[in-house]
């Protein structure tokens, strides 16, 4: 079953003297349980595509369906609620809430979903445990290493039980050991929780782990390989 159906996505930036085509007619379907990497050189449109798939940005042309719901042109507040319940995000700079503990950071997203306290705490703790950082639950993000913070961010993204998780350069700030650990854990979550991951990356280690690799060049899909 397709969780993402992107049809003929075009994104044109017209603020410059010459219009810039960040994406030019990209069509992409992502099936449930996929571990997909969108790769390509800098400026090829990876992040733009991820933003559009995640409902953070609108395409100039084309449409995006997430779990059979067309999100293109959806009103802001409705889209925020839709993202809350359907899409998980992992950012390059972790973007955790610094004033909350790691447990509270994971719990927070479920609080927005109005889940009850017991369920929130149990799931948050369980996810931190699966990510191997249960012992850091009551510490603040600033007390963790970059790799550990990114694991908290992955746990947060999974907490809301989204249809898929978008990860924009999740390993860009990590060393090889942390990258390897993070990818192993994501792969494990993909297997155990059937979580769908879509990465935007140019990190070869991520590409090696991915089962499907979509290569973008100049805003167009150059190749789409499933391994």
């Amino acid at each position: 079953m397709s969780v993402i159906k992107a049809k003929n996505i075009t994104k044109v930036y017209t603020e410059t003297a010459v219009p810039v085509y960040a994406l030019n007619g990209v069509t992409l379907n992502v099936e449930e349980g996929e571990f997909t990497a969108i790769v390509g050189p800098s400026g090829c449109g990876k992040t733009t595509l991820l933003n559009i798939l995640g409902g953070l940005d609108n395409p100039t042309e084309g449409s995006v369906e997430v779990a059979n719901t067309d999100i293109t042109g959806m009103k802001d507040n409705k889209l925020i609620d839709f993202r809350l319940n359907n899409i998980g995000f992992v950012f390059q700079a972790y973007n955790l809430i610094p004033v909350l503990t790691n447990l509270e950071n994971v719990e927070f997203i479920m609080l927005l979903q109005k889940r009850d306290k017991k369920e929130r705490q149990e799931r948050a703790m369980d996810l931190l445990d699966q990510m191997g950082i249960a012992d850091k639950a009551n510490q603040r993000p600033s007390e963790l290493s970059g790799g550990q913070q990114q694991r908290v961010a992955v746990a947060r993204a999974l907490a809301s039980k989204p249809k898929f998780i978008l990860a924009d350069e999740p390993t860009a700030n990590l060393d090889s050991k942390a990258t390897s650990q993070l990818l192993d854990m994501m792969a494990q979550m993909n297997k155990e929780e059937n979580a769908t991951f879509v990465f935007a990356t140019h990190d070869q280690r991520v590409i090696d782990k991915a089962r499907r690799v979509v290569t973008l060049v100049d805003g167009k899909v150059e190749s789409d390989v499933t391994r």
Partner: protein
Amino acid sequence: MLFKIAWKNVWRSRGRSLVVIGSIIVGVWALLFGTGFMNGFMVGYMANIIDHDISNIQIHNPEFKKDYDVKYWIKDGKKKAEAMREWEGVRGATTRIIVSGMISSPKKASGVQIRGIDLENESKVTSLDSIINEGTYFEGIKRNPIIIGSKLAENLSVKLRSKVVLTFNDGHGNITAGAFRIVGIVKSSSIAISETYAFVRQEDLTKLIDLGDVVHEIAILTEPQIEEATIVAQYHKMFNNDLAESWREIAPELAVMDEMYGSMLYVLMGIILTALIFGIVNTMLMAVLERFRELGMLMAVGMNKVRVYLMILVETVFLGIVGAPLGLLVGWLTIYYYRINGVDLSNYSEGLESFGYASILYPYVDTNVYFIVTIGVIITTVIAALYPAWKAVKLKPVEALHKL
């Protein structure tokens, strides 16, 4: 958790929040102390005039106040005063004979209002005996003692036991005079008492005006919680031929001042709270701008605009909730201390006294002012939060997330 995040966010930039909280404390304190200071001036000034001079209520013959002619006395004035002393809400009632005339010393002369007073009741109503600065309250001189104000004594170049002559028209229009000896000199910030009144015993003046046992004025001191209008209405109901007036009618300028000082609280509050708004807006705007990326992330992962708006609003209100009670406490303590010890303005006493103000000021703030100030600060913080909160919800997550 929204409140928890908001509370923790307040302390993220501890120094900045403390500066804002400090400014709220200083603002609230200044507001309370400023109001207390003005009230102290006003209450002191009014109390001085009401307690020592005009009293709460005065009763006259309706014709008397037109030109202070001695033939317009109050019918059965002494009996009426005696009856009123028994009324509920009346602390004291005294009678006076009032004559306009001249007072002369061997060196100088001056216009004067001669007041023939009932010694015992006058001290109960105006506490005249308590403001004697030199000499005694009609003791030590048997024949025609007189008390005058310090300024008048200075103008006439007289001192205790000096002889002065009072000249005025008696009840039949004839000029009459009497020699009096100064038994006491009163000192008061009231210009009338200090410069224009001369107090003599009622019986001495009765003989000189030759109208029999008459009085021209009944002055009444009421209990503090009693509205003067109630006693005035009661008097008019019983004795409808006389003119009974409260201090508001006798000295309308005092009533105007009373109202003006009341509205000064709001003026002062407006100025201080407006200044506070700018300080809070500045701080919160900085807090929002430096968290642009984080707010973008919150909106990206599913925190809706209402929640983001509320979070900023709650953060701002927390600043007020911490600052306002501390400001109220510091303000209350300051007022409490000076209410007991007074603010010594004796360095400026000459200038103040020439305007009828006391040189020791006792600040005073009504309980309801504390409530008004609290509500004012809360409203201020809410208003100050609106723009930063609006700025926060206006951001686009995709742009905010890519800001460095």
